[in-house]
């Protein structure tokens, strides 16, 4: 089966596109996901990825690349959530829920009206085998941008994630940096659309990063491990998806989740199994 996959990989351009895109998406989500999970913004990630849907639909209607519309609607969502959160007494998790579900619902209606060539299911759940060359380039560009930004602003991201109050006190524009992260999050969500789909992007953002968090206690290592696990999930997921004709997004997410469970049970420092054994030995 694996030999077949390799030989198909040699022969079919669409499969090569799929593999390259999947790996880049895995790495990119792993990197940005590390900051999202540490900031406690997981729900925000979920919201933004869902909320790109109306932008995708409107892009189809206008006949432009779905990338542009998706970015606009993702950012509008981030702004909307912040506005509701700060100007009303609604708690922030409710604000997130209200705004993103409204955007998502609007997207579902618009997708129906747009009668696009690409169906709703593949946007929702991803269909990695339909990745075109231009999609691949967009994904690469987003991946490079994310890695470049994280490299250049690592220090600032580090301190605004760990101690935003100190950062604000010495004059870092913490709000702007947070908006920057949301912009990246939007770009990553859009780039991941075809690989895992809007509904499951959040898993690729949170799961590998959380697994890495259990395995190490250094932020740089966490980012590296998270990126690696993201790439492994995407590659292994693509293999099973292609070989057994399963939906790519779902398989990728399951692979990531299996690795998370392994880390949860067997992580050297924090594994639940070792804790249980220690507990029994001590009693």
């Amino acid at each position, binding site marked *: 089966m694996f030999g077949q996959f390799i030989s198909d990989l040699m022969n079919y351009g669409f499969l090569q596109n799929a593999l390259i895109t999947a790996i880049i998406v895995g790495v990119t989500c792993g990197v940005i996901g590390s900051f999202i999970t*540490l900031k406690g913004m997981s729900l925000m990630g979920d919201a933004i990825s869902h909320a790109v849907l109306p932008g995708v639909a409107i892009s189809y209607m206008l006949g432009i690349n779905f990338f542009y519309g998706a970015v606009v609607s993702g950012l509008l969502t981030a702004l909307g959530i912040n506005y509701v959160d*700060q*100007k009303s*007494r609604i708690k922030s998790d409710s604000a997130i829920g209200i705004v993103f579900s409204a955007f998502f619902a609007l997207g579902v209606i618009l997708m129906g009206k747009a009668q696009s060539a690409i169906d709703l299911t593949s946007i929702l759940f991803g269909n990695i085998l339909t990745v075109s060359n231009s999609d691949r380039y967009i994904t690469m560009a987003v991946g490079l941008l994310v890695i470049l930004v994280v490299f*250049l*602003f*690592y*220090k*600032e991201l*580090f*301190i605004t*994630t*760990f*101690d935003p*109050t*100190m950062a*604000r*006190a*010495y*004059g870092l524009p913490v709000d702007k940096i947070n908006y920057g992260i949301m912009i990246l999050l939007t770009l990553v969500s859009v780039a991941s659309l075809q690989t895992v789909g809007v509904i499951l992007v959040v898993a690729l953002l949170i799961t590998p990063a959380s697994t890495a*968090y259990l395995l*190490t*206690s*250094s*932020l740089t*290592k*966490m980012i590296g491990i998270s990126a690696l696990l993201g790439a492994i999930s995407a590659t292994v997921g693509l293999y099973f998806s292609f070989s057994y004709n399963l939906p790519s997004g779902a398989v990728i997410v399951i692979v990531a989740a299996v690795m998370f469970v392994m880390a949860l049970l067997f992580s050297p420092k924090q594994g639940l199994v070792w804790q249980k054994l220690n507990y029994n030995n001590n009693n």
Partner: protein
Amino acid sequence: MLEIKNLSVTYPNNVKALEDVTVSIPSGKLVGVIGPNGAGKSTLLKGALGMVNRSGSVAFEGEPIEKIQQRIAYVEQKGNLDMDFPITVLQCVLLGTFPKLGWFKRPGKQEKEISMDALKRVGMEEFANRQISELSGGQFQRVLLARTLAQDAVLIFLDEPFVGIDIKSEGIIMDQLFKLRDQGKTILIVHHDLTKVGKYFDGLILLNKRLVASGEVDEVMTHDNLAKVFGEGAFTDIGGN
């Protein structure tokens, strides 16, 4: 001199946290901010630094406070920090060198030396490579003070540094704070335990949404002032000096 003029802070839910506070703090003084819960003690610090929407003006040595922003250290209540964050003690102190480095530059050998030196001054150098999650409350508070030392700040704001920490750590922290003050740094500490104010502080600011009193410890810790803020029941064991 830190001059706070007509400082008011209203939170977005229309709660007035602080109304029209005007107070000056001479440089090189160690000043306690006291008052009951919800009196706006933390808000005074945050408002002075422009970290919340405020009206009024704040100047340090005659200039707008933004001019020296890089040399302001603010240590918030340690309970607000994520102790499970993947960061070592040394990395935590290194954060203090970030303001001077500015954008893009990474901390190098020199910054590490500054940070190790700061850790030594609070007796925490042996813990440099530990995770912060392995520290006790007092040890972590000392690390946060080391971060302030590494920052070489001229204006230092500490929010409830002595809550839940051991006596040894409290002693080490006070020692370092006295040294900083003697070097001419201006230090503001939000504090809620009235028993040691006479021993710790050169001056006090007593708040209850508005300024109730400020000045020398003796001038502020009068029966009238305290009764106004805490009620008559608060006098059982206030030592003063």
